[in-house]
């Protein structure tokens, strides 16, 4: 039964579509959630959704690489990175990111709808020549808009931790886009993930310095007169 | 330097030197008559000069060598200038003698050093005189240049000798435009010799004086030399006007009779002109200092008009 279920292309595509919707929902959560722990959970869920999408695609297309990618995503983004961020987050002892720049959550949601539209318009201008399957096209649109929404998160949230999650969302978007548009060599994928891991490692460590509520950094600020420039 | 030019140097310069003080007295006389006075003797200027030559020279202790060389430089420059304006005959002069621009700048030498000597003794009068003289002469300069440029335009040469050689051939002005230039030249004489309405040569009142203020500190023979230079300047400027407007009688060749006739005609014409200047001075009031540029503009207008007429007609 399962095999027949898995062989049903149309059903699989429907499932992927449903997953798309879930991805967008997670993105909306990431835009508006104030609690960092739940943000992290949402991110993990989003990554898991990506894993599922990759796996479904494997079933549709049959490319081994997609399966490997799904596994890679599962290990790195669903497990390792959230775990790591969680550890750091507990160290900093902040649990909430309450402030927003430029866009309040409701406004961000509206804007992100606009972003989806823009991505659609943009991509439709280019992929009309190269016929991409409808599903693939939607995937690309979702991927691109997810990337832009990640950026939205980066600039509209204050704490570095949230920004990191925003960046990770962007990365997820790019991954989604990549899955649906092209199939890159797997070595490259691994390298990218390694790169991502180092980056997250570094930024979260650095976040200790910035998001920390402790005062020791402010003390050092006075002994060093580096900070300067016009904004004084 | 040929013999003719040497002779010219002696005759022309000597003649002008000789007659210049006469015109000074003449103008004074005319003015006096108009005012109902008797006026000085016609030869009074000569007596004055002789008296000054014999008097003691007093220098201010503040003054410097400038004060001492100015009289000589002044008279020297003007004597040189006499070579540029032939009144006895038109010689075969070396290149450059007679050049309008050199002539104008010889007058500038005189002005330059007079002004310096005015500043030399440190008196407020002298400074005032120099300041006014230099300012006003700067403003009259375009008029002079344009007047002489107009001459050059009409007569197609920049040399007085050649100009007068052209005008002397005819008894009436060569071109109607020349009579327009004459008006500017007349005004220039008034301005350059410091006469009413520009300046009052007879006063030592600080509000009005320009020329006199600068030579207040000069005395004795130095003053005599300056006065003489002043008289010469007046004569040669008059000579230019006469040779432009009423050139008849000027000898173009070196002959004895020609020279005599030239001298005679010049004396007559210059006396008439001097009388005219005297009348003009008497009939007009002294202008306020800062109204003078307007007066100069009139002269400028006439000269510029001349050129414009030459340009467009």
């Amino acid at each position, binding site marked *: 039964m399962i095999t027949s279920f898995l062989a049903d292309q149309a059903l699989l595509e429907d499932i992927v579509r449903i997953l798309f919707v879930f991805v967008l929902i997670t993105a909306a959560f990431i835009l508006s959630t104030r609690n960092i722990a739940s943000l992290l959970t949402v991110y993990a869920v989003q990554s898991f959704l990506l894993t599922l999408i990759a796996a479904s695609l494997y079933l549709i297309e049959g490319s081994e690489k997609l399966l490997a990618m799904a596994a890679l995503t599962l290990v790195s983004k669903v497990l390792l990175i959230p775990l790591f961020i969680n550890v750091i987050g507990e160290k900093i002892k902040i649990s909430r990111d309450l402030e927003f720049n430029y866009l309040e959550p409701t406004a961000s949601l509206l804007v992100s709808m606009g972003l989806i539209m823009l991505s659609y318009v943009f991509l439709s201008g280019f992929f009309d020549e190269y016929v991409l399957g409808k599903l693939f096209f939607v995937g690309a649109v979702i991927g691109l808009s997810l990337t832009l929404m990640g*950026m939205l998160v980066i600039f509209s949230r204050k704490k570095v931790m949230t920004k990191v999650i925003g960046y990770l969302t962007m990365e997820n978007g790019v991954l989604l886009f990549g899955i649906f548009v092209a199939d890159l060599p797997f070595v490259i994928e691994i390298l990218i993930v390694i790169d991502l891991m180092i980056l997250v490692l570094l930024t979260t460590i650095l976040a200790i310095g910035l998001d920390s509520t402790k005062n020791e950094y402010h003390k050092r600020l006075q002994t060093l007169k580096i900070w300067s420039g016009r904004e004084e | 330097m040929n013999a003719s030019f040497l002779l010219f140097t002696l005759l022309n310069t000597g003649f002008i030197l000789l007659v210049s003080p006469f015109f000074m007295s003449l103008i004074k006389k005319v003015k006096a008559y108009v005012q109902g006075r008797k006026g000085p003797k016609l030869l009074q200027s000569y007596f004055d000069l002789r008296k000054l030559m014999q008097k003691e020279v007093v220098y201010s202790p503040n003054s410097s060598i400038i004060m001492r060389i100015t009289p000589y430089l002044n008279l*020297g420059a003007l004597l040189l200038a006499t070579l540029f304006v032939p009144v006895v005959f038109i010689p075969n002069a070396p290149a450059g*003698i007679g050049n309008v621009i050199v002539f104008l*700048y010889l007058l500038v030498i005189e002005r330059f050093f007079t*002004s310096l000597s005015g500043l030399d003794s440190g008196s407020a009068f002298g400074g005032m005189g*120099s300041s006014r003289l230099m300012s006003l002469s*700067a403003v009259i300069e375009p008029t002079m240049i344009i007047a*002489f440029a107009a001459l050059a335009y009409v007569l197609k040469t920049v040399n007085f000798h050649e100009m007068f050689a052209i005008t002397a051939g005819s008894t009436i002005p060569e071109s109607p435009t020349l009579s327009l230039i004459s008006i500017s030249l007349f005004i220039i004489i008034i301005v350059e010799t410091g006469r009413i309405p520009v300046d009052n040569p007879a006063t030592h009142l600080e509000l009005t004086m320009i020329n006199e203020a600068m030579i207040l500190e000069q005395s004795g023979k130095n003053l005599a030399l300056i006065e003489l230079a002043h008289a010469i300047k007046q004569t040669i400027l008059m000579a230019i006007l006469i040779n432009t407007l009423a050139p008849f009688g000027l000898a173009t060749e070196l002959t004895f009779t020609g020279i005599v006739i030239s001298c005679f005609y010049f004396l007559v014409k210059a006396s008439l002109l001097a009388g005219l200047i005297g009348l003009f001075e008497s009939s007009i009031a002294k202008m306020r200092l*800062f109204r003078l540029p307007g007066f100069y503009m009139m002269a400028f207008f006439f000269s510029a008009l001349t050129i414009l007429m030459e*340009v467009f007609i």
Partner: protein
Amino acid sequence: MSLLEALVYGAIIALIFGTILPLLYRSKNTRKASFSLSFFSSILLLAFAGTVLYTGKEPTFPAFGFLPGLNFTMAADRLSAGFILLIAAVVPGVSIYSIEYVEYAKSEARKDIQTVLTNLFILAMLMVVLAGNMVGFLIFWEIMSLSSLMLVLHDYSSEENKKAGIFYFIMTSLSTAFLFMGFISLFRLTGSAEFGHLDYAASILTLPFLCLFIGFGIKAGLVPFHKWLPYAHPAAPSSVSALMSGVMLKVAIYGFLRFLLSVSAPEIWWGVLILIGGSLSAILGVIYAFRESDIKKLLAYSSIENVGIIFTGIGLYLIFKLEGLEGLAMLSLVGASFHAFNHALFKSLLFLCAGSIVHATGTRSIEALGGLIKRMPRTAALFLIGSVSIAGLPPANGFVSELMLFQAYFYSSALQDPLLKVLLIITLSVFALTSALVAALFVKLFGITFLALPRTKCAKEAIEVPQPMLSGEAIPAALCILSGLFSNRILALFGFDFGIPDMLVIGLLLVGVCGFVWLGVRNTGFSKTPRRSKETWGCGILAQHPTMEYSSIGFSEPLIAIFKKIYRPEISSTRTYSDTKECIFKDGTTKIHFPKFFEKYLYLPVAHTVNVISFQVSRMQNGKLGTYVFYVFIAVLTLMTFTRYFA
């Protein structure tokens, strides 16, 4: 390598050594040697330039492979030789003067640096004139600007000098920017960096012409780009002011002439533009000079005026040339070049003397001076020669070049176009006004500085400067007189004959007549008249006092009144009264303020606009990551839209 080239190489090598030596061995003797080298090099250059001008033989220099596809070449034709002659005439005096003058610098290091930079400056100016192509020209042009900039900043502690430095730098950068533009467009047009004949229609050359006109105009100090001169000259050491004013401005004129003479078919409006620009600079330069009491600022404005006269001559040249009057065109061109030469001489003389005065009295304000003729008689005599030359009194050299231009004007009746004639009449009267005002200006400068009683203690206690400085001043002074007297001979030697009056005759006659008068007075029985030096009558005052003397601003007052439309003086006064009804005057001050027209209406608005924009733009950099990412976000969206619709 013939002797001719050897002379140039010798001069260049001497200057290079002069530049490097003080860096290696730091002592007074090295500095002396360094200036001796520049003196020596100018002698070589004199020989070189003289030969080239006389024989018309053009030396050939090997090209030096410098950049890919581009050689550095040197070339010297008669035009460059003329300007090399100018350099060679100014440098000796400045070198000898500097030997002593440089020792007044504040510290050993500054003395060395001043020596090095002065030599470098001279070298750069020489190389600009020698440069065979535009790139070489630009390179040395920049070095010239930089070395002079550092010299302007030599006394960097004063706030005023800092401002002068920045301002000079900005103006010189602007000048270079315009030159870049002009040269680049020429380069694109001809496909080569060489200065060659430009056989193109004038409409094609409009852009390069305008760019080069503005570029060289800025550097030469043409109104309205003149503003840097009165700032930079007072800030620089006087020997450098002499070089800047005497030579550097001429180098700009050289560049402009180099371009202009290579154009085969210019248009008449070029000439008109140059003529109007020149006349405007001339008249405004001297009018602005009149209000100054700072001796070096005054001289700087006077440089603007002289540059104006030179440009007037160039403008006349173009107009006459295009109207087919070759003779008059040559007369104007040579007149302009000769004026450049003369101005180099007398302006360097005047700046050197000004340096002596400033050194002896410690002030640049002539209001504080007076009576220096008694304390510094030699400087006074030299300064008088300079004043006489610049005022254009015959037979000094300043007169000759003005005479040539006047003569060109006077003969312009041969022009056909009536409108051009009218233009010439107007500019002629402006020119006349200028030259008369210059005479007035230098009466003021010489009179207030040197004559009458000293106005302050510093003037009272001034002592004559040492001999080397006087010798340094004596060289240009002698050259002023000689080049005036022998102007006809010199021009004839170089193949120009315009039939202008022979100054030697005039000069001899003048001396003769003056001598005659003197002898006449002495030997005709009046020599026995007594003479006395005694307080003259002063309307009842007890003794002459300096405060009674005419001051600099007092001297200028009539002209300020006449030209009040240009000066727009703002007079403000405060008064206090001894009584409540304000009848009895107690105390008060009056200030005359001259608004700086170009600064107020041209420079400051531009600077202000740039500042405002700069401020707004730098506010973008607010230090917040959110904002920065927001920019990226917006940029990405914009680019997406752009690509969608334009690709």
